[in-house]
């Protein structure tokens, strides 16, 4: 688990692929004044972090989950999040390398977004905006102000 010091809008991202973790963290770099990305390397680590949140720790404004993760996959994590208060209302996006209609249907069933991982980094800026679009209007405004 990697966590930086300053509390901001928290985006929580779980993915077992180190390259993709780095890619998403870099994509949020331009929002670094307003966003802190906290990461986990698998579903178990993700659940451990999310279950440890309390009144003293800021709740993420967005949770991004890779689908194919060891130990506990992103779909299982999504299912569990939706049973956890107050996380059930936090927007979640499944972030996958495939565009499987079944996975999209699953995301829809659990009121989550679905975004396919880019083949090319040039798509990443658009994808980051798609992530932010899943946040509440207030959070969106907060994230998009003072872009680096």
């Amino acid at each position, binding site marked *: 688990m990697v966590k930086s010091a300053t509390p901001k809008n928290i985006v929580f991202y779980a993915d077992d*692929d180190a*390259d993709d973790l780095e*890619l998403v963290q870099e994509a949020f770099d331009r929002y670094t004044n307003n966003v802190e990305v906290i990461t986990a390397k698998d579903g178990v680590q993700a659940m451990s972090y999310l279950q440890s949140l309390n009144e003293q720790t800021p709740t993420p404004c967005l949770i991004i989950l890779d689908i*194919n993760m060891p130990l506990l996959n992103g779909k299982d994590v999504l299912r569990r999040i939706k049973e956890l208060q107050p996380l059930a209302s936090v927007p979640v996006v499944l972030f*996958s*390398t*495939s*565009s*499987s209609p079944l996975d999209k249907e699953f995301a829809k069933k659990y009121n989550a977004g679905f975004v*396919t991982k*880019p*083949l*090319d*980094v040039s*798509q*990443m800026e658009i994808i980051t905006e798609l992530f932010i679009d899943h946040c509440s209007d207030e959070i969106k405004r907060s994230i998009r102000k003072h872009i680096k």
Partner: protein
Amino acid sequence: MRLSEFDLLSCEKQLTILYQQGVYIGKRKVDEFTRLLFQLESFYVEITYISYRLSIHKVSYCESTSILDPYLEQIDVKYLVT
């Protein structure tokens, strides 16, 4: 879409179709290159990156399942054997 039809498309169009319809199979690293393998209907497409998701070196495709071999070799089956 058939392989022969895919072959006629520009690289940009191939990547768009792969992004929209490709089913991810695996990732592997060979020397300084990173490769991602996708299935697109009845054939396979492999993207080779010089720098992962940053710079595409080549896009290759075939119908032979032999392209799966190096990806299958990476799978650790010891946890599946009792």
